[in-house]
């Protein structure tokens, strides 16, 4: 086995153990990763390797940390969800979707799927970051994982049937109440957090932090829990080391995967000419497209009107201007400047990654002078950003509400014999 591998990867400068080392590092770096033996068996499409790979794929693709509920799903259910998720990410091979879900065969295909995911993104790092032990008091600044973004419809749904609109009003009111509750709880928590930081200042071994976090203080208060925390931290360290080892040795793994892919027969696409299509329509995705289309159309309408007006006014005013060379030069200059500006604007949404706005959770640190390093955020700046965001969103909401007001007025205004008394203003 080793000799054959050496012939296959001569350029890797491999010692006999380079590939097993890489695979071992990979399996140590993934949560409950399968043993290197599984990988080897999967290359030969051995059935016994299948269920371990299904489970691993399930853990990798699950967007939430796999809690007890998810982990206890039957293999069939896990395999099913893995297929959905790979489909939605655009996995190219058809063979995967056709695999039986009982774990009886298909380990080579699953190995290919795993490698495909590994090649597309830093999977072990992402999984570590997801399961990370937060030692500090974390606060997330960006809105990516915002509570506000409504998820898919809750699995438990009330009796489906026509409801009275008053129920909708009631639900809305309940929602407002819950938000108010959240705000007051949050304020209390901030006050307590701030106190704890204040009282423990000067304690931390790390000077840049200066005080303990709740997790750390809790660890001191409750040493048993502290032991658990320590053990989890040490396990995380081990996985981190494995990930670093993987990154150093992964080249030989990719060469190997190319050979694995070579042993598979090339697939024939289902139809001769296939337009781009999605296998299924997620209810939310479709709805999202529609909303955006509607918004853009409304904007288009507004712009059209504004442009017509301005163009007419301009023609009337500038019609009499000379057509001299300095005039056309000035026009050209303006045109170029505008093009550049708009090009920059376009970049704002074209790019995948957002602007320099930092992502992810930040550790809260209290400092009397508020001094912060380069990569750190200052609360005052974040507050400024949030205020401007707030103003923006409020404007959007008011505009939408104004639109509704107009629309409703139009719909009901035609009726005679009714007086509409708006509620007293704020």
């Amino acid at each position, binding site marked *: 086995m080793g000799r054959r591998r050496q012939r296959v990867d001569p350029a890797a400068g491999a010692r006999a153990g380079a590939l097993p080392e890489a695979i071992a590092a990979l399996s140590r770096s993934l949560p409950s990763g399968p043993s290197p033996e599984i990988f080897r068996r999967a290359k030969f499409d051995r059935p016994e390797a299948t269920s371990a790979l299904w489970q691993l794929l399930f853990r990798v693709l699950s967007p939430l940390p796999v809690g007890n509920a998810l982990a206890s799903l039957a293999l069939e259910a896990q395999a099913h969800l893995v*297929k*959905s*998720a790979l489909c*939605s990410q*655009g996995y190219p091979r058809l063979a995967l*979707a056709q695999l039986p879900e009982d774990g009886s065969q298909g380990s080579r295909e699953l190995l290919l799927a795993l490698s*495909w995911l*590994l090649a597309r993104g830093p999977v072990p790092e992402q999984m570590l*970051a997801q399961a990370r032990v937060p030692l500090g008091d974390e606060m997330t600044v960006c809105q990516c994982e915002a*509570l*506000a973004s409504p998820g898919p419809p809750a699995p438990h749904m009330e009796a489906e*049937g026509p409801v009275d609109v008053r129920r909708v*009003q009631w639900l809305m009111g309940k929602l*407002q109440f*819950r*938000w108010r509750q959240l705000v007051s709880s949050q304020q209390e928590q901030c006050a*307590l957090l701030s*106190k*704890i930081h204040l*009282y423990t200042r000067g304690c*931390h071994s790390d000077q840049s932090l200066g005080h303990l976090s*709740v997790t*750390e203080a809790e660890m001191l*208060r*409750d040493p048993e829990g502290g032991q658990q925390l320590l*053990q989890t931290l040490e396990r995380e*360290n081990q996985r981190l080391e494995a990930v*670093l080892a993987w990154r150093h040795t992964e*080249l030989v793994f990719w*060469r190997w995967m*190319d050979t694995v892919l070579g042993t598979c027969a090339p*697939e024939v696409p289902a139809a001769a000419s296939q337009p781009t299509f999605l296998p299924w*329509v*997620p209810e939310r*995705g479709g709805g999202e*497209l529609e*909303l*955006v289309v509607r918004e*853009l159309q409304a904007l*288009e309408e507004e*712009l059209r009107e*504004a442009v017509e007006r301005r163009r007419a006014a301009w023609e009337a005013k500038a019609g009499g201007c000379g057509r001299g060379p300095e005039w056309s030069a000035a026009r050209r200059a303006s*045109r170029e400047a505008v093009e550049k*500006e*708009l090009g920059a*604007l376009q970049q*704002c949404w074209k790019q995948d990654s957002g602007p320099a706005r930092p*992502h992810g959770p*930040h*550790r809260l640190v*209290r400092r009397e002078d*508020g001094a912060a390093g380069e990569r*750190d955020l200052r*609360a005052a700046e*974040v507050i400024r950003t*949030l205020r401007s965001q707030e103003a923006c*969103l409020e404007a959007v909401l008011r505009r*939408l*509400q104004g639109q509704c007001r107009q629309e409703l007025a139009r719909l009901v205004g035609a009726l005679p014999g009714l*007086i509409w008394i708006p509620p007293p203003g704020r």
Partner: protein
Amino acid sequence: MLPADCSRRLVAELQGALDACAQRQLQLEQSLRVCRRLLQAWEPTGTWALKPPPGPETNEEDPLPACTPSPQDLKELEFLTQALEKAVRVRRGITKAGERDKAPSLKSRSIVTSPGTTASAPPQSRGQAGQAGGHASDTRPTKGLRQTAVPAKGHAERRLLSVGDRTRVGMGARAPRPGAGLRDQQMAPSAAPQAPEAFTLKEKGHLLRLPAAFRKAASQNSSLWAQLGSTQTSDSMDATAAKTQFLQNMQTASGVPQPRLSAAEVEAEAGRLRKACSLLRLRMREELSAAPMDWMQEYRCLLTLEGLQAMVGQCLHRLQELRAAVVVQPPRPCPVEGPPRASPSCRGGAEPAWSPQLLVYSSTQELQTLAALQLRVAMLDQQIHLEKVLMAELLPLVSTAQPQGPPWLALCRAAHSLLCEGGARVLTILRDEPAV
């Protein structure tokens, strides 16, 4: 009554929002419980008081049982305490005069170097006694020593010595006084179970110290994450090339030369176009509200508006393309139900920062303002989404309802309240009967 499908969608949407709120509330309350408990007096439970510090010398994995020590331990401790008592007497004779003035601060600072919470219980008994005067402080330790029940297990000696070293490290000018360290350390085994004063974070919080094993693990952790961050950015070219090659091979092996548009990509693109819409709209607002000074500016304004119009057209075109791509294909054997929600961009972000960054605040007000604003922005986001959903559901109903009797009026009233007032206020409808 609203039609069934409309009801289902509205209720589902609102219920989802309510559930998300409830979940967040639960997390907050959990956190609040922990914080409140930390700020109250810490109960001197047997375990934490008696656990020896998990230093590099020890390899203990499980905490010591807080129970009766073995006879051998007691004997060892007896020897130890006798030795220490003697030291106390010697010390007392030498430093009594000088100590009294500086007693409180010295004692509290020397305790600082002891790791873990074993230090937190003794200081107050010593410190307060010290404040009261010299005599009380001396009787205390001896009494405490006799009543000790700590299973020292031979760690105590090593601990004393190591504390002596640490005393030097931690105390600066006062450092070269191992005696002081010893004398104060002797309190650790004794006073813990007997400490009547409870430990509060407010008074003694600044005396805490994290255990050494934890410190080591934590610093290792942050350095490993930092290494990970640096290898990410300087990824080996070969590895990246090999990965790209592999992906391409996968693609060609599957028979479809171009990758299909995946659901995740459609969603991502729709999000980008939504962002585009709001940016374009913002720009339009700016242009329309600016008052042009001269014809040059007016010309530029006009050009900008026309440019914006063209861009909106492009976006719409792209959306039509996406729409066309979203087609259900029966022969494709793919499951109907959706996967769990696609991972948010934060998780698989382009430049995830692996080592945590800091968010520095300077006062409680600032933190509270920050948190409140964050919630407000999240809430506004949600409100806007709900507004769009409600508009999509309710406005058609109002416009198409034919019999325009009282039920329809009620619907109008509710629609107005929900759509225009955020459900907070309701308008009144008066029937204006023609005069008889």
